[in-house]
């Protein structure tokens, strides 16, 4: 028996969330006295896969066929389910990434498994029964989900579980399950990626700005601040609705949910729908000229004042501390 963890890559590099999922699987394996088998699909160098050993993975199944180069959830789900059966896995872990959301439910359905979407802590086991916490009501609450099926599938949220090095080496084994043509029903024509940018859902620091910035021409200072911090940029909904920033930056109840270590909100009032997407951030900093802005109620640190004055100074102060 083993815990199976599905490992995602971007152009052959393992994602940060993949290491998080591996560490999460290792912590579960320790509880249950099992080992961790990882499954990688697509073209990833063996040297990259070997890195997983450090995080407690003892075996890596490497499904690296030409056909599997691009992501097709139906085909990938079939392969994950086949690996789970081969390894007799009772728990399957994947990352609740954008691709993970398309995979997890399919894998669970194939394995007659209960599915915990978006887990935020380690599960506890009691015989056949497992409990795990997830966010619900757009971050306004937590729900404890109970799964009693004999196989369980868990999608762990990005940034919810810390990567932990435990040392060790992983054996890499080729995995060539039979694949069915009818599973390849989606053609990837093109991948467009803003390569110079930190990906928002995985970012450890997010610099976000709202309507207080008055117009798209003022985002230069936001990008500079993000750059010195190695942060991703985000915005409130009206900002993306107005076309000042792309929709992919919109955070909140109807946008992306983030939980970075640090969220800096600049010229955002803190409407309940916005907070829903950011309230699980570990530290929140608010910069707003209105001392009554609701965002201050959920912030850890705040400066009341004009963003146009404060943000450039803040960028400089951070540069100073980084240079020392």
């Amino acid at each position, binding site marked *: 028996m083993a815990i199976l963890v599905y490992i995602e890559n971007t152009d052959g590099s393992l994602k940060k969330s993949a290491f998080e999922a591996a560490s999460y699987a290792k912590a579960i394996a320790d509880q249950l006295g099992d080992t961790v088998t990882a499954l990688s699909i697509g073209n990833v160098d063996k040297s990259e896969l070997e890195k997983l050993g450090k995080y407690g993975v003892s075996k890596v199944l490497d499904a690296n066929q030409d056909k599997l180069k691009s992501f097709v*959830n*139906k085909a990938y789900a079939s392969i994950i389910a086949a690996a789970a059966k081969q390894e007799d896995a009772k728990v399957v872990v994947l990352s609740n990434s*954008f691709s993970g959301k398309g995979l997890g439910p399919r894998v669970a359905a194939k394995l007659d498994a209960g599915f915990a979407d978006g887990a935020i802590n380690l599960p506890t086991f009691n015989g056949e029964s497992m409990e795990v916490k997830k966010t619900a009501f757009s971050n306004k*609450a937590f729900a*404890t989900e109970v799964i009693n099926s004999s196989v369980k599938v868990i999608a762990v949220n990005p940034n919810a579980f810390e990567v932990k090095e435990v040392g060790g080496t992983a054996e890499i084994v080729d995995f060539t399950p039979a694949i069915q043509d009818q599973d390849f029903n989606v053609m990837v024509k093109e991948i467009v990626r803003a390569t110079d940018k930190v990906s928002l859902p995985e970012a450890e620091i997010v610099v976000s700005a709202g309507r207080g910035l008055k117009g798209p021409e003022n985002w230069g200072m936001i990008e500079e601040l993000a750059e010195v911090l190695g942060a991703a940029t985000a915005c409130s909904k009206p900002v993306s609705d107005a076309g000042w920033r792309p*929709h992919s930056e919109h955070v909140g109840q109807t946008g992306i949910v983030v939980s970075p270590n640090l969220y800096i909100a600049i010229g955002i009032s803190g409407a309940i729908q916005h907070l829903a997407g950011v309230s699980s951030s570990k530290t929140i900093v608010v910069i707003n000229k209105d001392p009554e802005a609701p965002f201050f109620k959920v912030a850890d640190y705040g*400066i009341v004042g004009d963003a146009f004055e404060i943000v450039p100074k803040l960028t400089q102060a951070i540069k100073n501390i980084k240079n020392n």
Partner: protein
Amino acid sequence: MRILVCISNVPDTTSKITFSNDNTVFNSNGIQYIINPYDEIALSKAVELSEGGKGTVTVINVGDSSTEPTIRKALAIGADDAVRVNAQPRDAWFVANQIANYAKGENFDLILTGRESIDYNGAQVAALLGELLSLPSVSIAKKLDIQGTEATIDREIEGGKEVLTVSLPVVVGTAEGVAEPKIPNMRGIMGARTKPLQVIEPIEVKELSSISRYESPAPRSAVKLVDDVDQLVQLLHSEAKVI
């Protein structure tokens, strides 16, 4: 083209979320229900695609009779007819099985859901429908175009997008960017009253998971207001240890 749009009935986005009975049940007292905002995007897209006699739009909801105002609103926005599966939506697995059971005999060309419901946030139903109906599915679409029997879809990925093509039928979970939400006009509202709403009984579905209790997040401690950026940077560096 026949389009099915899955509609969930969720608490208004401004709702205060509380629980009753030892934190085991969502407290719906005083809660206003709305069409899940992402489903409104899906529905608006479906209406847009079907306009001018190019197709028909059916909406489906799994819910008890209290969801009928939401279904009527969907009809007012422009759906042609509606189906309600008469059951409490226990979880995404239950909901997807009910919808798949209805859809399997109906030959829809396109099945749309929202990317996730804003109450349980599972983001599961689109992928589950794909699996249960053995169809391709895209869980988070930022753009959707249909040409003949082929769909071109922008799928959200971390830090960008993937442009996909897929032959119909397909299940698509829609996000912001797919369509502008349509607002019902007077004619739509009047017409909605007489559009067909069929009520069907649920099938039995094995329970694979359940929610045992809820919690509200712990309140954050009061904000520390600082006067200048140097002080802020110091605190972030030595107290919060985030930079």
